[in-house]
């Protein structure tokens, strides 16, 4: 009895380690992509010195960050200062347990998957708040305050957008949500839930504190915001958490509104069978890569929002839009409006 349980836990641990390694590699090359993409958008070349085409640049960055000295400010609250980056990375990684990568590949296919991810992403703000407070620095505290206010405000809009998806799919299970979108690209929820999809994506970018909503870091006003006092590997943890969260929000966008691992050629005669051999995880990767690219695109092209504009957008525009559209969806589900809501 006990032995079987330990074997089970062992295999789960191995899966978790595999997932984490893949994520870390993805983050490493996402930073490389970011510098390249933004470079080309700004008529520069970007990193091209280390390795062929600069491909070893992220490895060099990791080595650099790990070799740097960790400085703990003498006026800081030592224990909380150390624990803040750990909280950040924990919440960023733990959310991946419920993400389905393919029809049969998910670490934990739990019924309340959406709720689980949402609960964990709401914890991410602790890492930021504690880091800002424990640093005992003005800039860090300002950054933490802004980040916390921003993520609390946008979590509401994001939650309502996800409520719309849950109502449309009639489930909180990710696999069930994906199956409910089966039947071709026009069955995916981006079409019937278009306003919610816009709200989700805007608040997703705001939740991760990325440009154009990056007032929490705002290097031109706050140096680096909440992690201004962190260096070396402790800074690297915050950095990792931010990028893992970016990939997570992009993956959720693909799953909730763009059919997850479903093929985009479903329901199109000829193309459907021609692409039937492609595994679902490839489609998911293509979709999430596009959204991650959008993050970089936004950063290269949009000017930063002002703080009061961010609050206004969140409270006065996004939340009312979601409230209206939730009523619309409720009516559509009640009257079984096709082709989307016939099976609920």
């Amino acid at each position: 009895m006990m032995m079987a349980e330990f074997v089970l836990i062992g295999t789960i641990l191995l899966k978790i380690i595999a997932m984490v390694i893949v994520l870390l590699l993805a983050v490493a090359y996402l930073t490389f992509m970011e510098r390249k993409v933004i470079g080309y958008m700004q008529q520069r070349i970007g990193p091209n010195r280390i390795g062929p085409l600069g491909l070893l640049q992220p490895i060099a960055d990791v080595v650099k960050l790990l070799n740097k000295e960790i400085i703990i400010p003498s006026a800081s609250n030592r224990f909380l200062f150390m624990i803040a980056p750990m909280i950040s990375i924990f919440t960023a990684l733990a959310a991946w347990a419920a993400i389905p990568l393919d029809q049969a590949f998910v670490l934990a296919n739990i019924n309340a998957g959406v709720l689980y991810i949402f609960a964990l992403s709401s914890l991410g703000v602790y890492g930021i708040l504690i880091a800002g407070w424990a640093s005992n620095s003005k800039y860090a505290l300002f950054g933490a305050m802004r980040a916390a206010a921003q993520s609390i405000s946008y979590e509401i809009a994001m939650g309502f957008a996800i409520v719309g998806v849950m109502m449309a799919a009639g489930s909180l299970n990710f696999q069930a949500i994906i199956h409910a979108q089966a039947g071709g690209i026009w069955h995916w929820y981006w079409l019937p839930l278009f306003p919610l999809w816009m709200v989700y994506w805007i608040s997703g970018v705001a939740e991760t504190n990325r440009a154009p909503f990056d007032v929490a870091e705002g290097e031109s006003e706050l140096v680096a915001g909440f992690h201004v006092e962190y260096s070396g590997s402790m800074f690297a943890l915050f950095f990792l958490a931010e990028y893992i969260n970016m990939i997570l929000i992009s993956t959720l966008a693909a799953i909730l509104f763009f059919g997850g691992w479903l093929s985009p050629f479903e329901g199109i005669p000829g193309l459907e069978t021609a692409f039937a051999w492609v595994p679902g995880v490839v489609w998911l990767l293509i979709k999430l890569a596009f959204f991650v690219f959008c993050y970089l695109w936004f950063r290269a092209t949009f000017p930063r929002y002002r703080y009061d504009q961010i609050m206004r957008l969140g409270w006065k525009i996004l939340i009312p839009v979601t409230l209206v559209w939730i009523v619309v969806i409720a009516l559509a589900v009640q009257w079984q409006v096709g082709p989307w809501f016939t099976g609920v």
Partner: protein
Amino acid sequence: MMSIAQLFFYVSAAVAVISGFMVVISKNPVRAVLFLVLAFFATAGIWMLLEAEFLALILVLVYVGAVMTLFLFVVMMLHIDWIVHRKAFVRYLPVGLCVALLTVGLSIRMLGPSHFNLANVAAPAAKPADYSNIADLGAVLYTDYAYPFEIAALLLLTAIIAAISLTHRRPKGRKQQEVSAQIAVRRQDRVHLIKMPSEKKR
């Protein structure tokens, strides 16, 4: 031999009790709030064992993710004097101890082995793997308890509106930008292009 589930229960229960105790005795209020967060987490773990995953996740989402964040926000903003804090602690210690002992005694009396054993209250049977706690809860909430649920929701809404209207003061003489007016501005309102020769002719 304990099973993993039992081990998980004892660890969560111990963490809940210890962190609850630490909330009370912590000198630093920020640490007290963080211990309270830990206590919520441990409780969520125990609820998870009870197969009430919806409640466990909502506990984390609402209390840890929203309420405690605001708590932390406020506590970080305040500068609480430790010494005054400790004096009050000593002053109220006897009363606090009496209340604590009374509560513990009553709990033991009511929940102790004499009333709350397996013979009186049978252990709940484990649900099958495809059992959905959320679907069950939703069904009950919107049928049997529809009116209490809706009344509670309305009460909360009233409380929100009341709290905001009681504390909200309309600012006087404050310069505020009108966003709709800003957006409605066209180029013709601000800039005039005047045609003129590029150099002056003599």
